[in-house]
Every structure is written in structure tokens, then in C-alpha cells.
């Protein structure tokens, strides 16, 4: 069924060009994107705005045709439609027919997905309960808040019990409680044996729930690998925020220790290696400067992400020797 035993999504050398206007000039937004998603994992697809996350997802959903390359889901070409009863999709900021109720819209999507008449009502009620919209199932969607529409979007993506779920910014528009609930829901999908592909820019969510991550910047995959590859490394540092530090002391610290210094108005931020923290703090307090904050810092997904964004057009690399 799939090319490799447990490979669910395979994206191979996808290139996408758009024509901005009527002219012949083309703008390339994806440059040979390649990655795969394995069975029963939560895959985080991370990148800054305009990196090509949504374009890639739209290619996977068959909404956009790739200029070059190919993409397969569950062994089927993404331009086919029959295999889609096995996938669910939540677009970014979903919008639904405002004249329908939550129950009616889910019934509509269930019918499109080929859910039998006998199962439809039961599934609709269950899904609305899961996304905490049981109280609003007969309200018109025009009365729904952004967060409620997001929940409807998640419910429609799951209405036909798909094997693979694609979520574009699933936490968008949700309050902290809602985000926690959706995080738990995504984890429960994995526990049920489903595979989840998640587009997001909220790195804390990626760190807490994803098994593997790919970082895309300017249409190129910069890093991909297991989430562990992006988490704590040997290099530990601490940020010290100091107020009223005499300039000569700052110069002295710069000579004695290996540290990064950044002025923030009247304050100075020092990034110090963990082994030097006590010595630097002693020196600072001796001259009567005020220590505003001490924040232990670890190299994390955020660093890798920011480095990748800053690197711009540098060649693709892989952290931790993976993949």
C-alpha cells in the first residue's frame, strides 16, 4: 500500500511556481521540498510566515498542483480523490456556510465523506461532544466565535474517522484552555493509531507533542529530524539582566569571561556560560549593580528555528546527524 512499510506521506522534490500576474514571469515558492511522515507519529511542519507551509499542505490536499515533483499519501497520488476518505483536513482559519448549524455542517461533510446514514447522527453528536460544542450544535455558524469555528473545523476533519489528519495552525484562535484541549485531542489521535501532520509556528506546541519536525524557510526544508534532536544540547547558558553596571566593570567582565553583551536601555543583558554564572554574579554585586533577572537558557527548537530563518539561503543541514 505504501512505498515503505510505515510511510504515510511522501513528498519528493516538490517545486511550485506561481505567476504573480498575467505576465510570463514566475515566482518560485517551493524549491524541491522533500520529507516523509511515518505511521502513527505527530509530524510538525514549522516555518515563519510565507515559508511555504500552507502551499505544501495545499499540494498535499490536491488544492494546488505541483510544478515539479510528486506527493503521495497512503500510496496514492495526491491529485486523486478516492483515497481522501482516509484523510482529514483542517485549513487555517476555517470558514463554513454561516446559514447552517454545527450539526448540519458536520452532517454535510459526513455525507461527502461517504459516512452511512445510520452512522452520521451518532458521529456528529460524538464529535461535537469531543470538541466541546455539544451546547451549540443547533446554533447557526454565523453566531460562532473564531475559536468555536476552529473546533467545528477540527470536528469536520475527524467526522469520517480518517487514518491521517492534516492540521493547518490548529491552535489558531483558541484560548489557553482550548489550546490545551486540542493538544490533548491530537495526542489522543496518536494514541488511537492515527497519523497527524501539523503546520504551526507555535514552537512550544511542537516541542510538547510532536515526534518529528521539519523546518521550512523560504520554500526549502532547512532541518528535519526527531524532536529530541532539537531539544537540550551540551551547551548550557544563562541570561543575566543587570541594571546600573559601571562601564569599566562591563569591560572587565568582557575580558575575563566568554560572554555576549547586549544593551537594553539602562540595562545590560549578559549571556554567560553556565560555569561562569556565579563568578559573574559576584563581580556584578560587588560593584553595587542590581541583578534584575537570572534566566537559565537552553539551546532548543526555537534556536534552531531562528538560526534557520537567519541563515536564509544557506544549504540544508540536519541536526544531530539524523536524516
Amino acid at each position: 500500500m505504501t512505498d515503505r512499510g510505515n510511510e504515510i506521506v511522501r513528498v519528493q522534490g516538490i517545486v511550485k511556481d506561481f505567476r504573480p500576474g498575467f505576465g510570463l514571469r514566475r515566482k518560485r515558492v517551493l524549491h524541491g521540498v522533500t520529507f516523509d511522515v511515518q505511521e502513527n507519529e505527530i509530524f510538525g511542519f514549522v516555518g515563519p510566515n510565507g515559508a511555504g507551509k500552507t502551499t505544501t499542505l495545499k499540494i498535499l490536499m490536491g488544492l494546488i498542483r505541483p510544478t515539479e515533483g510528486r506527493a503521495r499519501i497512503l500510496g496514492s497520488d495526491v491529485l486523486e480523490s478516492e483515497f481522501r476518505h482516509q484523510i482529514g483536513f483542517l485549513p487555517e482559519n476555517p470558514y463554513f456556510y454561516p446559514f447552517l448549524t454545527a450539526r448540519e455542517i458536520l452532517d454535510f461533510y459526513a455525507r461527502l465523506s461517504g459516512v452511512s446514514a445510520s452512522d452520521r447522527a451518532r458521529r456528529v453528536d460524538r464529535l461535537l461532544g469531543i470538541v466541546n460544542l455539544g451546547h451549540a450544535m443547533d446554533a447557526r455558524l454565523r453566531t460562532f466565535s473564531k475559536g468555536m469555528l476552529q473546533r467545528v473545523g477540527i470536528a469536520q476533519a475527524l467526522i469520517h474517522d480518517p487514518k491521517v489528519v492534516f492540521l493547518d495552525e490548529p491552535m489558531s484562535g483558541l484560548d489557553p484552555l482550548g489550546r490545551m484541549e486540542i493538544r490533548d485531542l491530537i495526542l489522543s489521535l496518536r494514541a488511537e493509531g492515527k497519523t497527524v501532520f501539523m503546520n504551526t509556528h507555535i514552537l512550544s506546541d511542537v516541542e510538547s507533542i510532536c515526534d518529528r519536525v521539519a523546518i521550512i524557510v523560504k520554500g526549502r526544508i532547512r532541518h528535519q529530524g526527531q524532536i529530541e534532536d532539537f531539544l537540550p544540547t551540551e551547551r548550557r547558558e544563562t541570561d543575566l539582566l543587570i541594571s546600573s553596571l559601571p562601564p569599566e566593570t562591563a569591560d572587565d567582565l568582557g575580558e575575563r569571561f566568554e560572554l555576549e553583551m547586549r544593551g537594553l536601555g539602562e540595562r545590560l543583558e549578559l549571556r554567560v556560560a553556565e560555569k561562569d554564572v556565579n563568578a559573574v554574579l559576584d563581580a556584578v554585586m560587588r560593584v553595587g549593580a542590581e541583578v534584575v533577572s537570572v534566566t537559565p537558557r537552553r539551546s532548543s527548537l526555537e534556536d534552531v528555528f531562528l538560526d534557520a530563518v537567519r541563515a536564509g539561503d544557506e544549504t540544508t543541514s540536519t541536526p544531530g546527524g539524523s536524516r
Partner: protein
Amino acid sequence: MGSLLRIHALATNTFREAIRNKLLYTLLGFSFLMIASGVLLATLSYVEVEEILQDMGMSAIRFFSAGIAIFVGIGLIHNEVDRRTIFTILSKPVSRSEFLIGKWAGLTFTVWLQLALMGLAFAIVSALAGAPLRPEHSLAITLIGLELMVLVAVATLFSAFTTPMLAALFTIGLWMIGHLTRDLHALSQQSDVESVAAAGSWLFQLLPDFEVFNKTLEAVHGLPIDRGEVWLAVAYAVGYTGCTLLVGSMIFSRRDFK
């Protein structure tokens, strides 16, 4: 079977959406006014009063139902793309052809329903004015229904790849030309230039011939309508609609939804 169920779901939803369109009720209201105003217009004449009344009514039905088909139809696909509702629909096992056919079927049913209401208004006004009602009247209105079916397909085709404004211009243009193709064809055949005659014949085959569906004259003046011509019109409507939706599906299936 699954395909029919999906098309049915899309058509039902399109119908539910279309009947909430305020433009539809505005045009329907104007059509009722025009049908009723035939009574006033008929008083201006001493002869053929009933014919004038019914001619006015049938013309109003054709004009306003075509207006509904065009102006509701042109936004069919564009609205789905603009509001991004198409993203979730096409992520289900729905082919783009099924989507297009579902939209067409839903709007065709909507315009047929409003055509029935206009026909009812026509019958009431005729009965109140003492004008005769014959089976030819219902046959002529049924043929208008076939014309609308083709027109909705044309609107759907243009809506599949262009903006509502351009789709409206193209569809209105084609509707007007469609009522003149026989005259244009006849004119071209009188040309001494062979290429003009050939082009005229080619265009006649390509462009819709909406006069096939126009039996107003026969209905209003109590003339018989040839049943053979009616069946020919049915076959023409089905064939032209099928070809138009096929071309629309081919274009639509290549389209990117950014």
C-alpha cells in the same frame, strides 16, 4: 452510487445557499410585477389584448429567470473559493467534476423552482384577465426551464475560472448571442466569401442556440407546438449542458486554489 450521493449533498447545499440570496427575491419580485403589469399594457390596445398580456408575461418569465440564473450562477464557484469553503470540501473524496456538477444541479433546481412560481403567477394573472390557458403555455415554460438549465451550465463554466464580473459579461453576452445565432448563421450563409460562410457554420455549431427553447409565439397565439421539436430541444439541452460541464470540469480540475 457514491458519486451521486456526493453530488446530491453538494446540490442540496447549493440550493439552501441560493434561496438565501436576496438578489433572487428581488428579481422574482420584479418578475411578478412585470407579469401583472401586462394587464395594464393590454388596456392600451383594442385588439389582441389577451395575446399582449401573455406575451408580456412570458417575456418577463424568460428575462427575469435568465437574470436569476446568470447573477446567482456567476458567484457559485467564486464564493466557495473566496470564502475558502472549497478547501474542506475538496479535501473529502469529492472530485472537482462532482463539485462542479453539484453546484450546477443545485442552482438549476433553484431556478426551476422560481420558474414554477413565475408560471403560477402567469396562470393567476391570465385567469384573472380571462385569457385562455392551454397545454402549450406549460410546454413553452418547460422549454424555458431547459434554456435555464443550459444557461446555468454556461454561468458555471465561466464561474469556474474567472471573476464574477467577467463571468457575468461572458454569460450575458452568450445568452444574447444565443438568441441571435440562427439569424447570424443565415446571414453568414448569404456571404460570397467562403470562409465567412464556413466560420458562420462553425460558430453556429459551437455557440448555444437558445431559440430552440423559444415557443412563446406558438403558446401565446394558440398555435400547436411540434412534439418532435420539443424532444429535439430536450436532447439539445442535455447535450449542450453535458459538453459545457465537461469543458468546465477540465478547466476547473487544472485550477490552483491559492
